[in-house]
């Protein structure tokens, strides 16, 4: 694209033709406040926070949608601009439930930050809020508090266009306008898949996860409970941000140390179960390929994707792997093998999982996720909740020593750790499947073709005489693309498909630390966090293939027998059923 010359606050700049004033200003580090803008997703010019003056334009223009043209003169900081932005912001604030001191978003709130940036100290409009708002906290995952909603529409666009669902929408008009599910249904009865993408893209505290930290504190304090915790792959790639560390910092050691100091009796790692998943899922795949099972087989670790499939592709449920997710495999193993070998009553063991995900909160309470009649995972908390617990406990995260996870169920390989990025499950499966099929050690175990943030990726993986055609997609609308093709019979040559509900996979899960929209303009957090995982895989860990995990091997020897054995099926596998998209008959 050709470049054009413009002037911003008197400074001459050359920028690509057609980019917005906001992007042009960003390129020379001139800050323009925004609230509704979300790069590539919600570019609608609705909030009017980004108003700027352009010579020759009668009215102020919205920088996020106004394109630059040759010779344009822009002022981002004139008295007129400052006053207009302030009035706009004061109007928003006059209709906002300002309770920052008790708001979960305080400190990472774009509205609060903008008020600070604009030096707003006084609101010249009377408070408008009526007490008409009802908090929707029916969903186990997402809490919606309309009293804090600024109607920016970001969640609507994310849910509709990125996730392909449209569970949230604009309802009513004028002063009664509310962003909500249709017919005022609770999110839990809408077509929401609990992914939490709306939460991490909401600028304020209007959407948040259901806080389960009290349940965890209570269990830790209960002398009759043996409380074990395990943390998912991508937690180590995200948690550091909550303590000011650079994005992409790998914090496995500090994570283990922090969990221990919180008072958990044992600190394990979901990565162990990720390795176990590969043993089960890889074996299932080889079985389906060689013995003629339903193909392509599709991964089943993302509970958001599972719900998607149950609601929108019930006719294709047979393609799902029967494997439970790593979270549930871990819970099942801890409540059976770990409990039995340590003489702990299954009812006294309390399993907490730390997940990058809000859908995991939904998964733990699914009726399928039981072992010997008890719930496998007692509580699932997000990375954000863990960070809050660490703060609450007065632990200085950044000065913690690096510690190890407890042995056996805390042992993991690089294959387990890369589960947290899109393509990771596929790569981990390939590392094992190829060696199992050929019986030889593979020369190259880096499957670059399935890495990265392209929405839909395919590759052909050679395993001796066999070629496995695989596909990887992440984010709801990419999932739809793939599933519609599958339904139309266009993917019959494929053997294995990895689908993750969140764009980028778990590193960008709905339970990860919040990154504001301005930061996302210039950083792809999916890529930056994934780097931490690929680094741990390539440079830190001794083993990089799930079948080489000595503790997983031991578990098979001591307890499960072999992958897909009767015992393994009993505790590690399940099946799913059709669900209504909108449950309005309740």
């Amino acid at each position, binding site marked *: 694209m050709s470049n054009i010359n413009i002037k911003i606050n008197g400074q001459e700049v050359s920028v690509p033709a057609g980019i917005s004033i906001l992007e042009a200003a960003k390129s020379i580090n001139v800050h323009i406040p925004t609230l509704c803008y979300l790069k590539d997703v919600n570019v609608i010019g609705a909030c009017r926070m980004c108003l700027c003056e352009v010579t020759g334009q009668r009215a102020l223009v919205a920088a996020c949608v106004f394109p630059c043209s040759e010779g344009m003169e822009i002022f981002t900081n004139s008295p007129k601009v400052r006053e207009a932005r302030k009035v706009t912001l004061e109007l928003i604030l006059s209709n906002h439930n300002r309770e920052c001191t008790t708001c979960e978003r305080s400190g990472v709130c774009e509205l609060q930050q903008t008020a600070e940036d604009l030096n707003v100290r006084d609101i010249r409009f009377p408070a408008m809020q009526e007490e008409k708002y009802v908090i929707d906290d029916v969903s186990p995952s997402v809490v919606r508090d309309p009293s804090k909603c600024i109607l920016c529409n970001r969640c609507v666009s994310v849910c509709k266009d990125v996730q392909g669902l449209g569970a949230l929408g604009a309802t009513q008009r004028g002063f009664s306008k509310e962003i909500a599910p249709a*017919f005022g249904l609770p999110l839990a009865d809408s077509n929401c898949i609990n992914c939490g993408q709306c939460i991490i893209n909401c600028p304020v505290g209007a959407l948040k996860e259901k806080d389960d930290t009290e349940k965890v504190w209570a269990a830790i304090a209960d002398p009759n409970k043996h409380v074990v915790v395990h943390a998912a792959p991508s937690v180590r790639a995200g948690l550091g941000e909550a303590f000011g560390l650079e994005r992409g910092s790998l914090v496995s050691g500090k994570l283990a140390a922090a969990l221990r100091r919180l008072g958990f009796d044992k600190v394990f790692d979901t990565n162990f179960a990720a390795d176990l998943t590969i043993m089960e899922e890889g074996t299932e795949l080889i079985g389906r390929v060689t013995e003629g099972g339903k193909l392509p087989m599709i991964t089943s670790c993302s509970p958001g994707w599972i719900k998607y499939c149950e609601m929108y592709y019930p006719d294709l449920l047979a393609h799902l792997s029967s494997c439970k997710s790593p979270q549930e495999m871990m819970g099942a193993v801890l409540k059976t093998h770990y409990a039995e070998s340590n003489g702990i009553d299954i009812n006294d063991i309390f399993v907490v999982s730390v997940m990058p995900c809000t859908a995991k909160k939904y998964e733990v309470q699914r009726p399928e996720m039981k072992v010997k009649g008890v719930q496998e995972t007692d509580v699932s908390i997000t990375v954000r909740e863990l960070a809050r617990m660490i703060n609450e406990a007065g632990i200085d995260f950044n000065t913690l020593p690096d510690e190890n996870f407890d042995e056996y169920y805390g042992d993991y390989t690089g294959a387990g750790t890369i589960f947290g990025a899109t393509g990771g499950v596929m790569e981990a499966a390939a590392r094992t499947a190829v060696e199992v099929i050929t019986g030889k050690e593979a020369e190259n175990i880096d499957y670059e073709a399935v890495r990265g943030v392209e929405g839909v990726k395919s590759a052909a993986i050679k395993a001796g005489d066999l070629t496995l055609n695989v596909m990887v997609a992440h984010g709801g609308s990419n999932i739809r693309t793939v599933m519609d093709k599958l339904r139309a019979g266009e993917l019959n040559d494929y053997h294995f498909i990895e689908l993750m509900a969140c764009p980028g996979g778990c590193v960008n899960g709905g339970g990860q630390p919040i990154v504001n929209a301005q930061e996302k303009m210039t950083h792809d957090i999916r890529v930056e966090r994934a780097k931490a995982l690929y680094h741990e895989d390539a440079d830190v860990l001794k083993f990089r293939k799930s079948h080489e995990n000595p503790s997983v091997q031991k578990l098979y020897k001591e307890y499960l027998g072999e992958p897909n054995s009767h015992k393994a099926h009993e505790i590690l596998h399940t099946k799913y059923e059709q669900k209504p998209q909108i449950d309005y008959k309740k």
Partner: protein
Amino acid sequence: MDDFVSIDNLTPLKEIIAKHKGAPGCAMPILQEAQEVYGYLPIELQKTIAEELGVSLSEIFGIVTFYTQFTLVRKGKYRVGICLGTACYVRGAQNIVDRFCRELNVEVGGTTPDMKFTVDATRCLGACGLAPVMMINEDVYGALTPDMAPDIIAKY
């Protein structure tokens, strides 16, 4: 014209959808015609429309709640619309509304249990010369006094 199709029968709706589907902005005419046929737009109809058009229910619901012409609740066979525009209001239209509500034992916007009458306050009907004025379906009544209510109701 007042006997609406039951929402158990989705055939007319499907015909309406088939007629408009594919045209840009087709949700509007579909919703309008569906409301004419069924009298209101409950979740069952909106869900069918959403599914057939391949959009989310929240999108359809957003349109329905944005425009005042659409209604989510079933209205009575006779829709009593009493004008509360300025001219009618200053000539005591509020008393007319109150009286009709009392006679029929419903709130404004409400429908009698036998589904016969719905009472609504409306915007200006454009017949200010007759203020206070009201309509029952297509019939116009003007120069109203509260005491006329029982006789008017008795006609239906």
